[in-house]
């Protein structure tokens, strides 16, 4: 909040956060990337003097309706304490260390920063403007594609999503050549130049109707392609030097074969987009050939039909949430109760954006979750409790990525990603009052708020609108 009218551009903020992060060595291994060019250190130091609010400091938020994000229900008069960029305590009756800056949040709500379970944020500025859309490519490469270096932390949808309380996101590439899209990442949405929480967090593959199309036109072709490519990766792993990848029979070049090795060994999760019940079962069956596969299902509009099998396989699902139309033949049984029914069956379910504007509208997460709660009052429907609903857009998304111990909840030890809301966060009339990422207060202005302020009255003033900024 303190940066709302900050005179410096986001880049300046980024440098100062970069400095702060250097002092937090525990975060460096998360991305493995050098977070600040040393040549900029002096400049950053200068900027630091101006932009101190960007630094992590100990902070306690008290008196709020507090939701931890782990599925538990919100508690009244809760407190969360953030120290050195991490949550150190959250709950009722928490002792606040002396000297801690305290924010009175009486009448307000506090949640963990929300984690979008499926997005393309940072890969896209304007989806229909090809030059700004890095989600997919017609390329000689597929599985080896790595979105992490291409994430643009200054993309406007990043700031717009941050302003809405989204602090982390799973970023998913889409297919351009064949069924594998490449390696997705988990990012933070902080106002800095270091967005990567976890690069190469998973491999992405299409296996339903889309997979059939990508494989040339049929599901059997997609399955055969998948198995053949994974076997080629196994060949590569056995003898990298002798794997050619250029023969007529090879489907994978060397680079893509290498990228699929951790998928076959289970070292890297494999996110599979699939919607219908029968396709889900076909994907689960792939483990008969490749037992180590660490599967994540994305979509699963008909997951409720095979929920016991998904639960037994211990495979997490990232669902679209509100699908309820037979919008394709693989979604004939789609219902808004899908998420609730899967959760009831013991499936770990999170939610993301599957159908449109995945690069832009991460903020719809609260609407998806709120509607899960609404279903509880619809006879015959299966919804989620409020706490479970929040979990699907916070800790469950983090856990699907294997990051449940780092982000997605306000349990002690998690990143200091916290949102202070002016009301119930799952109501569409509510909005964040403040957002912290790694304990750092984030600016809540963006291009949209600037346009709003410029046109608060449409008429020109003493000078044209172009002078109002």
């Amino acid at each position: 909040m303190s940066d709302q009218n900050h005179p410096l551009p986001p880049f300046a903020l980024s440098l100062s956060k970069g400095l702060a992060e250097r002092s937090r060595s525990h975060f460096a291994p998360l991305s493995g990337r050098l977070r600040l060019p040393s040549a900029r250190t002096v400049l950053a130091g200068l900027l630091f003097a101006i932009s101190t609010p960007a630094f992590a400091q100990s902070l306690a938020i008290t008196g709020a309706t507090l939701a931890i994000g782990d599925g538990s229900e919100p508690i009244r008069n809760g407190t969360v304490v953030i120290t050195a960029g991490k949550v150190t305590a959250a709950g009722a009756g928490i002792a606040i260390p002396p000297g801690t800056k305290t924010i009175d949040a009486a009448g307000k709500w506090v949640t963990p920063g929300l984690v979008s379970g499926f997005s393309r944020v940072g890969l896209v500025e304007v989806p229909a403007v090809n030059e700004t859309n890095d989600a997919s490519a017609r390329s000689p490469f597929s599985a080896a594609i790595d979105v992490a270096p291409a994430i643009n932390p200054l993309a406007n949808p990043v700031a717009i999503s941050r302003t809405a309380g989204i602090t982390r996101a799973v970023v998913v590439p889409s297919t351009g050549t064949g069924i594998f899209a490449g390696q997705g990442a988990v990012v933070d949405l902080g106002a800095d130049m270091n967005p990567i929480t976890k690069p190469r967090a998973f491999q992405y593959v299409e296996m339903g109707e889309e997979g059939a199309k990508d494989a040339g036109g049929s599901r059997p072709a997609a399955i055969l392609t998948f198995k053949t490519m994974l076997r080629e990766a196994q060949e590569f792993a056995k003898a990298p030097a002798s794997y050619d990848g250029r023969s007529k029979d090879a489907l994978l070049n060397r680079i893509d074969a290498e990228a699929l090795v951790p998928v076959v060994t289970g070292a890297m999760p494999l996110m599979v987009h699939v919607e219908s019940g029968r396709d889900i079962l076909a994907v689960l069956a792939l483990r008969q050939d490749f037992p180590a596969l660490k599967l994540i299902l994305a979509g699963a509009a008909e997951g409720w039909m095979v929920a016991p099998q998904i639960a037994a396989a211990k495979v997490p699902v990232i669902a679209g949430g509100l699908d309820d139309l037979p919008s394709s033949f693989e979604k004939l049984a789609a219902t808004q109760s899908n998420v609730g029914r899967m959760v009831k069956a013991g499936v770990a379910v999170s939610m993301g954006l599957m159908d449109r504007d995945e690069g832009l509208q991460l903020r719809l997460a609260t609407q998806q979750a709120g509607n899960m709660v609404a279903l509880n009052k619809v006879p015959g429907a299966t919804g989620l409790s409020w706490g479970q609903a929040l979990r699907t857009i916070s800790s469950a998304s983090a856990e699907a990525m294997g990051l449940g111990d780092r982000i997605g909840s306000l349990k002690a030890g998690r990143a200091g990603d916290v949102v202070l809301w002016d009301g119930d966060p799952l109501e569409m009339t509510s909005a964040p009052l403040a957002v912290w990422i790694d304990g750092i207060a984030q600016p809540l202005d963006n291009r949209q708020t600037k346009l709003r302020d410029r046109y608060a009255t449409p008429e020109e003033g003493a000078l044209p609108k172009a002078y109002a900024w």
Partner: protein
Amino acid sequence: MRKSATPLLIAALLAGVAGPAGAKKDKDAPAATQGSSVEPENPYPSTYKAYPGTATAIRGATIFDGEGGRIDNGVIFLSDGKITAIGGADTPIPADIAVFDGTGKYVTPGVIDIHSHLGNYPSPGVDAHSDGNEATAPVTAHVWAEHSIWPQDAGFSRALANGGVTSLQILPGSANLFGGRSVTLKNVPARTMQGMKFPGAPHGLKMACGENPKRVYGSKGREPSTRMGNMAVNRATWIKARDFQKKRAAGKDQSRDLGMETLADVLEGKILVHNHCYRADEMANVIDMGKEFGYRVTAFHHAVEAYKIADLLRDNGVCSALWGDWYGFKMEAYDGIKENVPLVHRAGACTIVHSDDDNGIQRLNQEAAKALGAGRRMGIDIPDEIAWTWLAINPARAMGISDQTGSLKVGKMADVVLWNGNPFSTYTRPNKVWIDGALLYDSANPKLRPVSDFEVGQIGAGDVK
């Protein structure tokens, strides 16, 4: 994983303006002219008849009347398909009728979506169902959206059960400058389009500004490929239309021309113009074009930059049909902001919340809530009952049906939703929906949930969706 490009449409005319003359033509009246130019008055007439209802009252609910009025602990009485009484707790109702306890619940007029493609881009969205854009020429004023409507689109029932939608306008897509005629439907399942057609509703004309027409035809190497090309083709078409209309008005014999008939009806105020247009500068051009040729735009649809020219829109009496929070998916949507709806509303211009989407139409109340909250945060404190006009009387006026529906006034169609809480809450859903007094959705009765022909016998048929 993205659906086909958002079909974006066009058009509409006006709120606050009287319904178009000729909206209720007598279908049996003789045509105005004889011979080769005989133009039937109403060749695809509505066959919709209200389903039987029972006299019903709701007591104790909070009522938003759709015109900005609010009654706490109110009473509403429906009989013979009409609203027969509405008022406070002491409103008299007959003793022998069904009475629902509305305590803790809300009553509103049915939601009206001015911009939908249910039926012409139905589910499942396979190529065989792509019937919204006759994208073979930039001027297709001769096509009628109603001839693409597939009544078995499951989207209609979702809009009813989850969204409380009772009337909706189906428009042609936005590939073309002149997309064709729209049609207004009652959201009642039927075997035929005619069985859904809103009796007496005027047709609309869908027009489109901007990127879509110039992209679709520019990519084919033909005009228009620029915004100036868009305007030039528009103007050339209106010149022809005025000639046609003058001859027709003078009773001169001329061959029938379906496109020109539509445009002549626009020039005579019988068909309402619904103009897909995102950018402020383009809307200003279109307003001037209307003045050049003597017609008026009823509503700009998808007007994401309406907030920049809210004064101009107010002064010209043009409605804006808007999303709650869509932005940025294409260049002309880049400047979309959440405060668009409240800013246009505050300027005194007619404001409508629309969907253009088979999911969004299920949650128009929540889209309005987004706008309401964004407005309040910037100090535009619009009461809930005023905001409901965005979903009720304002779209009804812009569709030319406000004398029949769009608010809870005595004598109007009993198109009513009983919500299980405040409809601006995410946690609220329709409890019951009446259309013309017939109870067509009841959340407590699994049999009062329509299942389309497409869904019947399929997995999930009859499930709570």
